[in-house]
């Protein structure tokens, strides 16, 4: 049975296994574990999905819980994709934050329809400075 948890502790090994199995954010695979641990320790909000103790999906958010939230990553193991689990992760985040918090994200091109169907609107002013390492 798949379970969703908010802000449940994740180990660096569990995180790396999820990233690698999903072929996600390849640049982070080579980060030293201290940096990934710092990232996990300071991330304000996560919703994670578990089956039999295995981490199978995660939404990671930067937020003040009061006004704004940036969905930095959403990743699900390939075997569990296209089963509505991404929607469940997102709904969990939305329900946890409530309607007073704006959620902002960067959509993968193939996920744009998914976000639109959930009521997300195009945001034309989003910009970034990329990290170099």
């Amino acid at each position, binding site marked *: 049975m798949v379970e969703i948890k908010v802000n449940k502790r994740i180990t660096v090994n569990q995180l790396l296994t999820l990233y690698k199995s999903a072929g996600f954010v390849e640049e982070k695979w080579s980060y030293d574990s201290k940096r990934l641990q710092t990232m996990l320790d300071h991330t304000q909000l996560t919703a994670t999905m578990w089956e039999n103790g295995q981490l199978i999906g995660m939404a990671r958010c930067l937020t003040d819980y009061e006004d704004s939230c940036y969905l930095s990553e959403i990743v699900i193991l390939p075997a569990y994709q296209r089963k509505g689990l991404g929607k469940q992760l997102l709904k969990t985040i939305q329900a946890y934050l409530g309607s007073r918090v*704006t959620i902002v994200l960067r959509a993968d091109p193939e996920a744009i329809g998914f976000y639109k169907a959930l009521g*997300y*609107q195009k945001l034309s002013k989003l910009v970034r400075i990329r990290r*170099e390492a």
Partner: protein
Amino acid sequence: MIIYSATAKISSKQLANLIAHSKSQRPTNDLGRLTRMIRNANLLYSAWDDDRLVGVVRGFSDEATCCYLSELVVRDDYPQLEISRKLINKIHRELGSGISLVSAVIPDSLATDEKMGFEQIDSGFQLPREY
């Protein structure tokens, strides 16, 4: 002279007063909410003219890979672009080049200024707050 700070304490009343004298449309009647917004932002840079708060950038960082700047407010009667530019530059310098900076509140002329280093994200989406 404008002084910039990464550590100065800001009260909810100071923030409410700044917002009231800016282009921000944010309601300021709920001081408790403003207090929590100040307290829960792990990145809060401010600009001061003596003891008057004239600019704020508020953001959330994971301190390892990514930082999101959710709010940028500058007092109407002060130079908007200069203060915005200095606040953002200071944040980027102190975060370092290993942390990406994402925002939907950067003024257009800074977002397109090559010296600032921003790139447009074409696939930004949001679910806006209701209040």
